[in-house]
């Protein structure tokens, strides 16, 4: 599916750009986009290196495993395919709590460690497992307690009460997460029936 989206985005851009007489801009955009990709990636490098270092200590000391065992009754409902006390659980939990606290740059490294652990359980290394899809669903909807960036921007533009959007944001993201998890379950059943 990603194949089609990618292809469609680029082909449509070139056709529309040609019709609009903006082929020059499209040309530039291709390389500008590539540059953005690299910049974003290197922005990730520092946080990834830092948190993956920290998480390795947590893993070696048994902290992650303990955490996973402690909270497995809750998370194992969301991830029934992951064995109890598996390190993936610890990472998933850390990822979810970092998201909740609005610590976006800590959430990604933990999410990626969780993906690595889930990949170890995956029989077909090219295809996403249901557990991976659930982790993705949680992260794309991402419930956030405090949308720090938006509060900062509202402050900057002189809002009378910058934090008044906290409630609406929390409700909207909670709703989106419920929808995401419900759809994830529905697609999962359908998918399992089809592949069986």
């Amino acid at each position, binding site marked *: 599916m990603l194949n089609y989206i990618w292809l469609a985005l680029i082909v449509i851009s070139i056709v529309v*750009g040609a019709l609009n007489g903006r082929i020059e801009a499209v040309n530039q*955009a291709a390389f500008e986009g590539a540059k953005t990709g690299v910049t*974003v990636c290197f922005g990730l490098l520092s946080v990834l290196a830092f948190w993956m*270092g920290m998480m390795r200590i947590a893993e070696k000391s048994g902290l992650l495993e303990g955490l996973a065992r402690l909270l497995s009754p809750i998370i194992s409902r969301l991830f029934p395919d992951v064995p109890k006390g598996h390190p993936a659980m610890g990472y998933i939990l850390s990822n979810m709590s970092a998201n909740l606290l609005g610590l976006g740059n800590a959430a990604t490294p933990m999410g990626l460690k969780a993906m*690595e652990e889930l990949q170890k359980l995956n029989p077909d290394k090219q295809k996403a497992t249901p557990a991976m899809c659930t982790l993705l669903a949680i992260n794309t909807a991402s419930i956030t307690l405090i949308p720090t960036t938006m509060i900062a921007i509202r402050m900057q533009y002189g*809002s009378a009460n*910058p934090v008044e959007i906290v409630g*609406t944001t929390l409700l909207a993201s909670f709703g*989106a997460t419920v929808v995401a998890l419900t759809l994830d379950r529905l697609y999962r059943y359908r*998918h399992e029936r089809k592949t069986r």
Partner: protein
Amino acid sequence: MYQWISMISLWAIPVMIAFILVYGWSRSVPVYETFVDGAKGGLTTTVRILPHLVAMMVAVTMFRESGALEWLLSLMSPLLELLHVPEEIVPLALLRPITGTGSLAVATDMIAQYGPDSFLGRLAATMQGSTDTTLYVLTVYFGAVGIRNSAYALRVGLWSDLAGVIFSLVIVSYVFG
């Protein structure tokens, strides 16, 4: 309430770092060597993600700069009028799942233009803050472990983005309307 939450998020990281280190040390883990060893993994992960991010950013930037995005918007506008959705919010709703920096720029622009305490300003802030960038999350998470077939993850992500947009509209209208 906010004071409280912001205190937690301010202290969460320092406390967590201290706790991980001290706990590791108490279990006689060689903390420095272990940290360096783990941090190395950050480098390999970044290298693995890079091509995926370049591919995605190229497509998204081209789509925006070619005018294809505006064209898509103009196609949709009759439908939106029918549903009483303010047209000004549509670019943001469309960009949100595709690009985080792009949609942040649009949301900021809307807040600057209409004022942070206007209906549109509040809606933009809520919409921007309530979900993450689906395409980015998908690219990074699956790219990092070499998944090619994303199964149904993209569909779930995009539908829940639509749900997020609708919830934002309804909730902001109800709370501030």
